C-alpha cells in the first residue's frame, strides 16, 4: 500500500458507497445507515444553532471516514488485480483466425475414400466468432485465436503473455503437451488446433475476470464469518436501540449521534471492513506465485488440506537417475574404474550416461581435455539396446586408452547383462561386487557394472551407483507439513523397493509404488472416505479424473486441456512443488480472517470503558470511576473511540493485504501465538490508542470542556 495506489483506489472507494453494494456487508451497511442518520441530526443541530453541533459534525465526518476506509481497503485490493488484468487484456487483442471448413460434399456422395486425405477450404473469420469444435490453422507469427488442443503438427509457442516466462514451449498433437492458450503466439512451424473454448470463456478471459474480482463470490467460510458478524451487529443494534428508553428512564437520554457512535464502535467494523480485502488479497498472492484458482473456495480448501499426493518424479526427485558413486572391485585401482566408466559413457547421450561422465570428471572437469581426444573416429560406438542392455566403446589398437595389442571392449550396463557378458568371456563377478549390487538395489538405487575385455579375458572392474536424487530441502519441507498435520503420499511408477528407499530418504509419510492413474484415483477416494481433504498435481489427460476428484487439483499449465479443465487450479510455471506453497496461502488467508476477527471483538472491551462513562457520568457521577483511561471529557471520549475505530481499519489494511505471517507450526503453537498478539493485543491496543487520540482531540476547544 503506497500513496499512489491509495489515491488510485479513491474513486472506486467512493463508487462503492452505493447502498446496493454496501448491503453485502451487514456491518458496514449499518455504519452507512448510522452515518446518514448522524448527517441528518448534524444538519438539524446546525440549523437550530445547537451547542453540540460541532461535536456532532466531527463525529459524523469520522463515521463517513469509517465507511470510506472500509471501501478503500477493498478498492486497493481490487486495484492490485486490475493492473494485472490490464496487462493480460493487452494480450487479448482481436485476431483473425483461419478457420478450416470441409469442402461441401454433395448429398449421396458421402465422401468415401477422401476421409484420410481430405481437402479443406479455409476462411478468415474474426477470433470472436469461433465456436467450440472449430478447427483453425496457425503458422509461425500467428496469435492463437482461442484455447484449444493441437490435433496436427508441432510448434514452438511463446506463452509469455500469460506465464511471464520468455522461453518458448513446445506444443504438439497427442500426448500431454497438446493444449494451447488463446493470446499466445506461434513462433515456428504450423499447427492445426481444435477450439475448446468459445470467445469470452477462454482461459485468458477467466483469468482477467478472476484477478479483477468481477466474478468474486463469497466463499463458504466467508459466508459463515459474515453470519457471525451479522449476528454480533444485530446484538449491538438491539443493545443500543434499547439503551435509549433505558437511559430515558434514568433521565440521561443521549443524543442520537452519541448512540450511533456507540453502535459503530461496538459492532465489528474492523473485520467487517477488511473481509473483502483479505479474500481478494489471498487470491492475489496466489496469482503472484503464478497460480490461477478457479474460485476463492479452492484457495480456502487449500488451507484445509490434510493429505498431499505428490508425484515422485519432478516433485520429490529431479527425475533423472544420476551417478553418485563408483565402487571398485578388490585389487582394481579406483582411478582405473573411474576412467573406464567415463570411457564407456562418452558416447552415451542419456541423462544417466552424462551423469557418469560428470561424476568421473569431477566438478573441475580435469579430464575434459582427454575426453574429447579419446573419442576419435576410429572408435566403435556400441549403442544401448533393449536386448544387450549395455553400451560402451570398442577401442582400436593404438588408441591412447588401449595399452594392449587387440581391440579393447569397454562396457557398462545392467548388472545381469554385464555379468553374463563377462562370464561368456572368461571373467567372473567378484563376490564383493555382487554384494555391492545387492546393496544398491536394496536401497532403491540402480547398479551398473563396468567391464573390459581385452580379447583374452573379461574383467569386471566395479559398480557405478545410480540413484534418484531427492531435491535438497524436501525432507525439511515434509517435516514442516507433518508438523502442520498434513500427510504426504508419494506416487511413483517405481517398484516397491525403490519407492520405499526414496520415500525414506525424502521423509514422506506413505507411498504408492507401481502406481497407475487409476491408483491415484483410488488413493484419493480412500483418503476422502476417511474424511481427509486431498490435494494433488497432475498434467496428463489420464490424471483428469483424479484431479477432478481431489479437493484441490492443481494442473500444470504445460498439461492437457482435459487436465486443466478438471483441476481447480492451474500452475502457470508447471512446478509441482508449488502445491506446498498453495496450502500455505490457503492457511494464511484463514489465519488473517480469524486474527482480525479476534482483534476486532477484543477491541470492544476498551470502547465500553471509553463510551459508557461518557454517556452517563453526568447523571450518575459514580460511573465516572469506569473512566479508567482518564479521558478529558465525554465528548472527547466518544470522539476518540470513533476516531480510533476508523483509523484502526487503515492501520490494518497493509496486514490484510499482506496476510498475517504464516509459520509452519502445529495448531496449538499457532493459536497461542495469534491469541496473544490479536486477542490480548486487541484488548490492550485500544486503551492506548484511544488515550493517545484523546490527548490530541482534547486540544479542540469546544470538545475539551467538561
Amino acid at each position, binding site marked *: 500500500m503506497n500513496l499512489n495506489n491509495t489515491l488510485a483506489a479513491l474513486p472506486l472507494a467512493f463508487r462503492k458507497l452505493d447502498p446496493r453494494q454496501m448491503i453485502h456487508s451487514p456491518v458496514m451497511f449499518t455504519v452507512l445507515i448510522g452515518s446518514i442518520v448522524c448527517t441528518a441530526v448534524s444538519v438539524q443541530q446546525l440549523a437550530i444553532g445547537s451547542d453540540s453541533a460541532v461535536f456532532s459534525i466531527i463525529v459524523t465526518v469520522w463515521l463517513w471516514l469509517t465507511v470510506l476506509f472500509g471501501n478503500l481497503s477493498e478498492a486497493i485490493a481490487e486495484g492490485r488485480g486490475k493492473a494485472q488484468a490490464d496487462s493480460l487484456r493487452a494480450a487479448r487483442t482481436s485476431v483473425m483466425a483461419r478457420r478450416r471448413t470441409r469442402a461441401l460434399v454433395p448429398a449421396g456422395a458421402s465422401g468415401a475414400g477422401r476421409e484420410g486425405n481430405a481437402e479443406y477450404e479455409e476462411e478468415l473469420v474474426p477470433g470472436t466468432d469461433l465456436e467450440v469444435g472449430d478447427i483453425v490453422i496457425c503458422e509461425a507469427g500467428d496469435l492463437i485465436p482461442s484455447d484449444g488442443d493441437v490435433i496436427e503438427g508441432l510448434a514452438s509457442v511463446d506463452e509469455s503473455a500469460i506465464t511471464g516466462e520468455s522461453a518458448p514451449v513446445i506444443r504438439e498433437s497427442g500426448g500431454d503437451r497438446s493444449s494451447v492458450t488463446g493470446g499466445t503466439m506461434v513462433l515456428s512451424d504450423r499447427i492445426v488446433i481444435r477450439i475448446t473454448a468459445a470467445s469470452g470463456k477462454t482461459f485468458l478471459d477467466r483469468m482477467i475476470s478472476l484477478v479483477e474480482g468481477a466474478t468474486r463470490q463469497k466463499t463458504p467460510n466467508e459466508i459463515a464469518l459474515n453470519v457471525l458478524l451479522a*449476528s454480533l451487529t444485530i446484538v449491538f443494534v438491539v443493545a443500543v436501540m434499547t439503551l435509549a428508553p433505558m437511559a430515558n428512564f434514568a433521565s440521561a437520554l443521549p443524543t442520537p449521534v452519541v448512540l450511533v457512535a456507540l453502535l459503530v464502535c461496538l459492532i465489528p467494523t474492523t473485520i467487517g471492513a477488511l473481509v473483502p480485502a483479505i479474500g481478494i488479497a489471498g487470491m492475489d498472492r496466489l496469482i503472484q506465485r503464478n497460480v490461477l484458482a478457479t474460485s476463492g473456495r479452492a484457495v480456502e480448501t487449500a488451507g484445509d488440506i490434510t493429505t498431499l499426493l505428490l508425484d515422485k518424479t519432478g516433485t520429490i526427485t529431479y527425475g533423472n537417475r544420476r551417478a553418485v558413486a563408483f565402487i571398485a572391485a578388490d585389487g582394481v585401482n579406483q582411478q582405473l574404474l573411474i576412467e573406464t566408466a567415463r570411457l564407456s559413457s562418452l558416447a552415451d547421450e542419456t541423462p544417466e550416461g552424462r551423469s557418469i561422465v560428470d561424476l568421473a570428471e569431477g566438478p573441475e572437469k580435469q579430464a575434459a581435455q582427454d575426453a574429447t581426444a579419446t573419442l576419435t573416429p576410429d572408435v566403435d560406438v556400441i549403442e544401448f539396446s533393449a536386448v544387450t542392455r549395455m553400451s560402451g566403446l570398442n577401442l582400436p589398437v593404438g588408441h591412447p586408452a588401449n595399452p594392449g595389442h587387440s581391440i579393447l571392449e569397454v562396457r557398462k550396463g545392467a548388472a545381469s547383462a554385464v555379468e553374463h557378458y563377462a562370464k561368456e568371456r572368461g571373467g567372473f563377478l567378484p563376490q564383493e561386487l555382487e554384494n555391492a549390487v545387492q546393496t544398491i538395489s536394496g536401497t532403491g538405487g540402480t547398479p551398473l557394472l563396468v567391464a573390459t575385455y581385452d580379447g583374452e579375458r573379461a574383467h569386471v572392474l566395479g559398480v557405478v551407483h545410480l540413484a534418484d536424487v531427492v531435491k535438497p530441502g524436501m525432507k525439511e519441507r515434509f517435516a514442516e507439513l507433518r508438523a502442520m498435520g498434513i500427510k504426504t503420499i508419494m506416487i511413483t511408477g517405481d517398484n516397491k523397493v525403490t519407492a520405499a528407499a526414496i520415500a525414506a530418504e525424502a521423509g514422506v509419510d506413505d507411498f504408492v509404488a507401481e502406481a497407475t492413474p487409476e491408483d491415484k484415483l483410488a488413493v484419493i477416494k480412500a483418503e476422502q472416505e476417511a474424511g481427509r481433504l486431498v490435494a494433488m498435481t497432475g498434467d496428463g489427460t489420464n490424471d483428469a479424473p483424479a484431479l477432478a476428484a481431489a479437493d484441490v487439483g492443481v494442473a500444470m499449465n504445460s498439461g492437457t486441456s482435459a487436465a486443466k479443465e478438471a483441476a481447480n487450479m492451474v500452475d502457470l510455471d508447471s512446478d509441482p512443488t508449488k502445491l506446498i506453497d498453495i496450502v500455505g496461502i490457503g492457511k494464511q488467508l*484463514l489465519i488473517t*480472517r480469524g486474527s482480525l476477527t479476534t482483534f476486532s471483538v477484543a477491541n470492544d472491551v476498551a470502547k465500553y470503558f471509553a463510551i459508557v*462513562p461518557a454517556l452517563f457520568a453526568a447523571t450518575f457521577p*459514580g460511573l465516572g470511576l469506569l473512566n479508567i483511561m482518564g479521558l478529558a471529557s465525554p465528548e472527547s471520549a466518544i470522539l476518540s473511540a470513533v476516531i480510533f475505530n476508523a483509523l484502526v481499519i487503515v492501520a490494518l489494511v497493509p496486514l490484510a493485504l499482506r496476510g498475517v505471517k504464516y509459520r509452519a507450526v502445529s495448531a496449538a503453537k499457532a*493459536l497461542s501465538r495469534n491469541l496473544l498478539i490479536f486477542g490480548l493485543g486487541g484488548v490492550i491496543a485500544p486503551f492506548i490508542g484511544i488515550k493517545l487520540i484523546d490527548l490530541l482531540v482534547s486540544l479542540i476547544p469546544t470538545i475539551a470542556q467538561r
Partner: protein
Amino acid sequence: MDLSIFSLATQLAVLIVVLAALHQPLGKYLANTFTSHKHLAVESGLYKLSGVDPQADQHWKVYLRSLLAFSIVSIVVLFLGQLLQGILPFNQGLGAVDPWVAMNTAVSFVTNTNWQTYVPETTLGFGIQMMLLAVQNFLSAAVGLAVVVALIRGFTRAQTSNLGNFWVDLTRGTLRVLLPLAVIGAVVLMITGVIQNWGGTSIHTLVTGAQQTVPGGPVASQEAIKLLGTNGGGYFNANSAHPFENPTAFSSLFQVFLILVIPFSLPAMYGRMVGDKRQGYTVLTVMVAFWLASTTLMAWAIAAFNGNGTSVGEGFEQRLGVAPSALFATATTLTSTGAVNVAHDSLPPLAGGLAMLNMMLGEIAPGGVGSGLYGMLILAVVAVFIGGLMVGRTPEFLGKKIGAPQMKLVALYILVTPTLVLLGTAITVAIPSLAAAAPAEGPHGFSEILYAFTSAANNNGSAFGGITSAGPGLATMLALAMLIGRFLPIALVLALAGSLAKQRKIPATTGTLATHGPLFAVLLGGISLILTALTYFPALALGPAAEGLLK
C-alpha cells in the same frame, strides 16, 4: 458487612472436595444411562402404556416436535389444574388461581424457570404443589438433559439426522437420574430438619395468648428436586430463606451442593460420550473458573458494602451470616435455579449486579441441568470458529465442520437471550404503567425490571422481589420471555445437532485446533465473557453500577 472469610473458604473447600469426588462417577452413570440399549421393566411398561416405540431413532425434527408437544401439553395441564384447584383434592381449601398468575406459573415451571409470581402459602395447596409443580420440576429438568444428550449425539454420530428417542431420554433422565438422586436428597434434607408432613397450616395459641401460624406440607420431597433439577420454585414464598425449607447452615450448604452436582457432572458425561475425557475436563475447567471467580467477587461485593451499618444486612440470613448467602446467590444465578436463601433485592448493588451478570453470561457456569452444558457447547462452537481460523483451518469441532449452516444456528442462538432481556426491559421502562410494577426509586427500580427479564429469558426464576409481576402486562411479557428463552434455543440446538450428525467425521491431525487443554479453555472463557456479558454493559451501567459506584 461482616464476612467470615474462613467460613466461606471452608464451605467452598467442602463443596469442591465433594463435587470433585462425585463428578466422574456421576458423569459415568449419566453417560451409561443415555447410551445403554436396555430398558428397565418399569420403563418398558410406560412405553407400552403410552404407545411409544422405544427403539425408534428420531430425526432431529421429530425429536424437537416430541419435545414441544410434550411441553405444550404440560403447560395446558398445569394451567387448567390451577384454574380447577377448587375441585381438585388436597387443595387445603384454596380455590381457583387467578388466570394470569396461573398462565405465568404454568409457563414458568415447564420452562424450568420457576419464577414465582404467586405466593404459595395463600395460592396453592399441596395437591397442586405435589402433583403438578413437583412433577414439572422433574420433567423440565429431564427435558434439558435430553437436549444436551441429543446435541452430544450430534457430535458423535455420522451421516444420520437421527438424534435418539426423546421419550426414552426423558423417561431415563427422570427415572434413572433425577428420581433416585431426589429421594436421597430429600432424606438428607429431612435429617437436617426440613419438614415433610401431610398437615396443613395449623394455628397455635401461645402461652402469651398470641396466635402463631405454623405452616406444614411435603416440603423436603419438593425441595430436593427444586435444587437438583435447577428449578428453584420454593414450597414457601420465602424459598430457601424459610426455616422450614432450609433450617441450618449445613442444609444451606447441602442445598448449594444439590444445585451444582448434576451440572458439574455433565462435562464428565460429555467427555465420556464423545470418547475423550479431556474435552469434558476443559469445559469443566471453564465452568469452575467462572464459578470461583464469581463467588469471590460476590463475597467481596457483599463484604465491601456498609450501607446500613449492620454487620449482617437486611434480607440476609441473620443466624448464619453472609458467607452462605454469597455462596448460595452465586450458585443459584450461575445455574438456572433461582432458589434463594437471601433476598436478592437486598443484596448490595454491585452484588445484585453480579447476580445479573451471572445469568447474563448465559448460565453456563455450570448452568442449568442440561441447558448449562448445551449453552457452553454453543459458545465452544463460536470459540472453535474463531480459533480454527486463527490456526489456518476452516473450523471443525470434534471432527465436524463448522460452516455457514452451523454458524447461522449458533448466531441465532446467541441473539435470542440478549434480545429478549433488552427488549423486554426497554418496553417495560418505556411504558409507565408497566414500570410502576417496580416501586423502587431510580437505578434500583430499573434494576428490578432488568433483573426480572434477565431471570425470565435465562429461565432462572430468582427475582429482585420488590417487583410485582402478577398483572396481565408483566405476567404475559415475562411468560413470553420464558417461553422463547427456553424453546427457541432448544430448537436451534437440536437443529445444530441434526446438521452435525449429518456430516461424516473428519479425523484430527496436528493441524486441527485442539478443543481441550488450557489454551482452548482461555479462548472459550474469553469468548463467553465478551460475546455474552459485555452486551449488557450499558444496561448494567444504568442499574447496579449507577447505584453501586459512588464517587
